[in-house]
């Protein structure tokens, strides 16, 4: 346990330290990469609440990631063209304020997770995996065929949104925002895991009947976890869209769902810092292997296969031993 705590501290500091070194070396591209890792880690932290804690294998988290992205894209595109989003029954203007956009992304993703979760959680096992996948695809095809916001081509936002007191176009300042959000989410996730809610959720995963006999409803626990999980991933989507200043239906694609899952697994399922380790490793591999070969995903596939087959605790499990992270 002590080893994992130590490892967590190293992992946590790794991102800002790398960004700081890149700043000293004047390498803005590296800062952007680290920012991307932090944002993808945030998406993974979201998924990990459902997957690691609740045992809910959602293969449709791209839905929330994409909704967060489109919440940003739609609000900012209306602000950029000075047209209101909606006039009746009441006026909604577009906005360039990051905080408002985050709120919208959280609420949109949470509502979608509530609807998707309420339907999907009626099923279990493979059916759950596939129905969440289907919901993700449903939104993907909707985004492609809905022409109002760019359809297949996506939406470009020319200027990054505003955050009070910071210049968001400066890579290091935007990194600080993303990292701050990640830190808050990690703190929240650690609180959830230790709170009565998290314990009950974990118990429902192990033995739903027993949880029911002590008077709790597993369905409700899982639904709440799914909503929190979706909302966090939605927030990551808004940040990701802001990082790229671009949203497209690709954010909804099932590859995105798979990748978010890969971050969690590469790092270690159910480990608080698993997604951070996984996302950082993913970005590192993408950058290093992508420099060697255009077909770097072959190596990623082989590595992922080896992790699944032989190193089941993921990166953190391998480095910190196989104790379960909850106690």
């Amino acid at each position, binding site marked *: 346990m002590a080893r994992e705590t130590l490892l967590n501290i190293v992992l946590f500091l790794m991102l800002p330290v790398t960004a700081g070194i890149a700043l000293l070396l004047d390498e803005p591209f590296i800062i952007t990469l680290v920012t991307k890792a932090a944002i993808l880690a945030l998406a993974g932290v979201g998924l990990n609440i459902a997957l690691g804690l609740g045992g809910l294998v959602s293969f449709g988290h791209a839905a929330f990631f994409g909704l967060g992205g489109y919440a940003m894209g739609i609000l900012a595109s209306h602000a950029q063209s000075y047209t209101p989003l909606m006039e009746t029954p009441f006026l909604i203007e577009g906005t360039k304020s990051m905080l408002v956009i985050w709120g919208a992304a959280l609420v949109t993703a949470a509502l979608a997770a509530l609807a998707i979760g309420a339907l999907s959680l009626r099923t279990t096992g493979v059916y759950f995996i*596939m129905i969440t996948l289907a919901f993700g695809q449903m939104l993907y095809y909707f985004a492609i*065929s*809905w022409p*109002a916001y760019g359809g297949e081509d996506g939406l470009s936002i020319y200027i990054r949104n505003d955050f009070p007191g910071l210049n968001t176009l400066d890579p290091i300042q935007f990194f600080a925002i993303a990292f701050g959000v990640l830190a808050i989410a990690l703190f929240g996730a650690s609180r959830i895991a230790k709170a009565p809610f998290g314990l009950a959720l974990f118990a429902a995963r192990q033995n739903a009947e027993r949880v029911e006999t002590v008077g709790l409803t597993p369905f409700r626990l899982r639904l709440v976890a799914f909503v929190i999980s979706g909302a966090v991933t939605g927030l990551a989507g808004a940040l990701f869209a802001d990082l790229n200043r671009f949203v497209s239906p690709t954010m909804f694609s099932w590859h995105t769902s798979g990748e978010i899952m890969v971050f969690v697994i590469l790092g270690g399922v159910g480990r608080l810092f698993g997604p951070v380790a996984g996302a950082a490793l993913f970005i590192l591999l993408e950058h290093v292997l992508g420099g060697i070969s255009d*077909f770097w995903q*072959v190596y990623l*596939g082989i590595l992922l296969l080896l992790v*699944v087959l032989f190193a089941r605790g993921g990166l953190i499990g391998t480095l910190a031993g196989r104790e379960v992270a909850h106690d």
Partner: protein
Amino acid sequence: MSLILLIEQVLNGLQFGVMLFLMAAGLTLIFGVMGLINLAHGSLYMVGAFAAAAVAGWTGSFILALIAALAAAAAAGALVELLVIRRLYDRDHLDQVLATFALILIFSEGTRWLFGSFPLFLDVPAALAGPVMLPGGILYPLYRLVIIGVGLLVAAGLFLLIAKTRIGVQIRAGEADREMIAALGVDISKLYTLVFALGAALAGLAGALVGAIQSVQVGMGEPVLILAFVVIVIGGIGSIKGALVGSLLVGLTDTLGGVLLPPLFASFMQASSANSVGSAVASMSIYILMVGVLLFKPSGLFGGT
């Protein structure tokens, strides 16, 4: 909407559904017998299409291309089963999803490496090219009719295989109780490899047949894979009959939805927005169908418990 157009679209829907069945049958068999979710099934479809396109390019023979597709997909399936998949049978679904997702990355990027990013083309054989006149004066491409026929034949063959042969008995017994049939002396790991290769061959056949209508390219298996998942979830995972009913439902819903929904919305909306709303809803229609089915039957139409 004329009746002729409608009949054409129904035939298109059937053709699509039959192709989905070839994919879904393998998926559902593999799930039913081995309890495995195989995301890489779409990659086997792609392997079949690429093998067919390459062999047709060298020899010019469509028959040889089909044989190559079957052989390549079955061989790839057997190889993957021996190397990777058999380590996954007693793992949980999460591990299976991830490992087979990894296989997709390897297959897709590996194929891009070998064949490049440009799509290949596979021509419809000359004997089957061109339209045919159906009763009622409907002109319909012969090749698509042949696909429907081949698909239905394969479906019938599969039902016979499972209902009447010794292998079929073992497959059904494997679905019911794996340990027991192993205890009765059936070589279970050989049976698993066989079932996996059979599913792969069906996927490869589907890939080759569809490859002649669409272009053969990396990633072509993924949309079909996801539709095949929708099919088996609707039909009930593990049920071949469910896969057949589900495929036809999904094929018809998808095809007819795209044709019928935009005019339907136009009947009560402005033409311009009706078109976009109609096509958006049409593209989601099969997922809406799936959600609808699962609300009433959480384990699919023909699912067990």
